[in-house]
């Protein structure tokens, strides 16, 4: 038996044309390797897409790639991730499943008050595959508490458990997330296919594996890739796990401390860096921080810098200037590494004057606020009555807050 394990592909996360091309070509390379290596099936541990209804261009490209694999009589099994799951609307994952392109595993059913996610038996290999999908805010954590563990232990054969949850004890210094405990995973599986953690983890003792994202076109993931985190997926053959490195680009990470410099001097310093660096076909992450001694942050010619870097053949410039300040202007526009970070910073600022018994609660409030914010962006449908729209919004809000069941009694 030979299978591939991918995760957190986040198709559609980037809107930069050149990065989008890379995103597609990376997916294509991964699937081509799977076909060349004749894997029996592919497992995707959630977040195949970045949102539940992504840009249709990326869907079309992904379908083309996946169809070639499926047409050879092979299967793609996946769970929802926290990004491509929607509590209230259909996800593109559901559409692709209806079309027979992918198969979602672990659909929940209950027996004697215990959760028994559906087990799918792969026809080619006889492998039994089940799992638990991810949900926003790691709400899936409660599902693990109700798992019928004895039932899973009693099953004989090669068993794979697919999940989209970070494991608490894998947390690194500086990482903040609410995950599951490894003891939440049911015992007796031959392979635990993890997703949601955006870095590679191999724990052969406990058979827990996270391949991390296949492609990282944004935010801190992009930075980490440039700093050396390898990106790819696993191929598992007769219990042996091999990591296939697909890191899609080379990059340069550069930090420039602007403390004590004038805006003019900073411009020169950045230009000097560009002139002395071979940026061709590379992703550049430029982090500029510190307090300018003279001039405004807007005096720094970031647009021209971007143009120049791109003119010199760079694939993409990721500019992080969230910690650049000017002495002349204390007030600052909320700037972050990406949209998510900007939103997070704004919410953090908003809750910072509240007193919480646990500092972790601040992160939860921020995460909840962001989830609400994202879900409530949904616009009124054409022809939808005002009252129906309001009701729909109310339902979304209750779902996100996790109190829908509570209120309905």
């Amino acid at each position, binding site marked *: 038996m030979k299978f591939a394990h991918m995760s957190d592909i986040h198709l559609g996360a980037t809107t930069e044309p050149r990065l989008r091309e890379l995103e597609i070509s990376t997916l294509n390379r991964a699937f081509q390797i799977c076909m060349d290596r004749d894997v029996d099936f592919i497992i995707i541990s959630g977040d195949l897409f970045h949102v539940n209804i992504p840009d249709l261009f990326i869907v079309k490209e992904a379908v083309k790639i996946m169809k070639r694999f499926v047409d050879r009589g092979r299967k793609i099994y996946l769970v929802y991730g926290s990004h491509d799951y929607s509590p209230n609307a259909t996800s593109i994952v559901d559409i692709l499943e209806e079309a027979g392109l992918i198969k979602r595993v672990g659909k929940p059913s209950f027996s004697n008050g215990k959760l028994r996610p559906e087990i799918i038996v792969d026809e080619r290999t006889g492998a039994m595959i089940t799992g638990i999908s991810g949900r926003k805010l790691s709400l899936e954590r409660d599902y*693990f*508490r109700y*798992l019928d*563990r004895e039932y899973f232990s009693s099953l004989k054969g090669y068993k794979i458990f697919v999940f989209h949850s970070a494991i*608490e*004890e*894998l*947390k*690194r*210094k500086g*990482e903040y997330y609410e995950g599951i*405990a*490894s*003891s*939440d995973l049911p015992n007796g599986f031959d392979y635990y296919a993890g997703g949601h953690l955006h870095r590679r*983890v*191999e*724990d052969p*003792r*406990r058979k827990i594996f996270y391949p991390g994202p296949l492609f990282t076109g944004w935010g801190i993931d992009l930075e980490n890739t440039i700093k050396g985190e390898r990106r790819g997926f696993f191929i598992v053959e007769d219990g042996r796990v091999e990591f296939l490195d697909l890191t899609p680009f080379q990059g340069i990470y550069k930090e420039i401390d602007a403390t004590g410099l004038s805006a003019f001097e900073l411009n020169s310093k950045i230009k000097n860096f560009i002139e002395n660096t071979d940026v061709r076909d590379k992703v550049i992450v430029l982090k500029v921080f510190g307090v300018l001694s003279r001039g405004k942050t807007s005096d720094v010619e970031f647009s021209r810098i971007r143009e120049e870097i791109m003119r010199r053949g760079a694939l993409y410039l990721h500019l992080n200037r969230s910690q650049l300040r000017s002495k002349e202007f204390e007030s600052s526009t909320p700037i972050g590494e990406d949209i998510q970070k900007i939103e997070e910073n704004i919410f953090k600022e908003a809750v910072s004057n509240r007193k919480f*018994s*646990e*500092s*972790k609660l601040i992160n939860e409030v921020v995460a909840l606020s962001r989830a609400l914010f994202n879900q409530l962006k949904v616009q009124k449908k054409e022809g939808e009555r005002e009252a129906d729209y309001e009701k729909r919004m109310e339902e979304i809000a209750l779902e996100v807050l996790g109190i829908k069941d509570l209120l309905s009694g």
Partner: protein
Amino acid sequence: MEIVGSIVAGGSDYLIIREKKGSSLELGELLAVEDGDKKYLYVVSSIEYKSILDENRLYTSAGTIIEGINPKLEIPEDDLKLFRKVTLVPLLEVLNNNIYRAPRSIPSFLSKVRRIESSDFSFLEIPKNRIFLGKIRSGSKALDLNYYMNGEEMLSHHVIIAAQTGRGKSNMVKVMLWEIMNYSNFGILILDVHNEYFGYGTQKGLKDHPRADKALVYYSKSPPPGQNKLVVNLKSIEPEDLLGIIELSEPQKDAINIFARDYKREWLKELLREDPERDKEFKKIHASTLRALRRKLGNLFRIRILEDGEPYCEDDVFCFEGAGETTISDIADALEGGKVVIIDGSTIPDETGLIIMSAVMREVFNRYERYKNEGLLRDKVQIGVVLEEAPRILGELYDKNIFGRIAREGRKFKIGLIAVTQMASVIPDEILANIGTKIIMGNEMQKERRKLIENSPQDLSAYNYIIAGLEKGESIVTSIFSKFPVPIYTPLFDDIATKRADKFEPVFF
């Protein structure tokens, strides 16, 4: 009001009463004497026969009874010449406005003495941030009156729970923690060497608390579903965590310090990695010192050296990469959040568990020291660390480890020790003197009793036999925060947990 005797002799140190026939007073029983607008509380410290008859007459009477020789020379049951003489030691003097203090006077001669009632303790107030210890006890009878201490005072000045095995030490700790979990206002860390606090299967434990999901965190090498796997990344262990836990020679300490200086968080991995060429560069470290250190640390952390010289963690409690990087700080976070954190020490060697505890308390100490400097300490919860059966840690090695530091300085930083031990006698006087509250349970060993009595905040010199006779669950609480030694009975944990499991409502208040 049951009169049990009358004062016939004594003074400010003790009183002698003649016992009313049939009263059946027992050691440790509490008695009250009301005298005008004052009330005095006493404890029975000894009981003996007394007769004002001629001794020969008594012997003759006893002989006729046991030998069955007529005519019997019996003594009538209501003969006033035979009685029991009971010695009482003073406990308290209560003024009519409910102010209480150590006695400064004695009641009138021939005053009547009665048994105590719950209402005699109406002067006791339920303190802020209370910790429930048990019910006030008179002899072997528990009164319907709960005894609480101010948790912040009690924990910040340390607690020792001392008893022989089987007298209810663990039960006492579990009952305290059960109540603490109701309010989440104390962070308590426990290394559970017998894995008896969390509970498993149908055995009751803190897991059965209605607020367990919010107030309890459990780490184990083999956790039940949903609980935390105990895995500690060796990057989070610092040299000082080993000091006072394992014995290290001066050259070994120097070697550790050199590696810590050069390799920072990777010091342990690099120290254990066998690289002869690199090792030669450390001219100040003798090769035999390195070998001995590697053997010692390798055994401690269950690390094997692979053929290529790389160290490999055989036991999954410790690791070099991948997992457990935040375990120490996560536990510190939980303690700061007012949670009870149990580390299952039953499946790991004692020293391993103590090193993890040491690392956690070092992290907590550093944080609280910082909070104090920043003026934020007042808003932080009081932290307590339960040290079970660790006489060495508080004994010969106390001046080197973090626990000794907590014993000496913890009160300034809202961090306290709860030492649970059978062997109080091996704890140095300096540490014992720093422990503000002593919960003394039954102990037949004279040496142990003497040590505790000598180091008690109140004078317990008359309690020697009372302590020897304490039954399971019975104890005497003597504290710098209490004006008298308080006899209590701590209910069985299983009864509390079962009652709570049926219906969630406070049992004791």
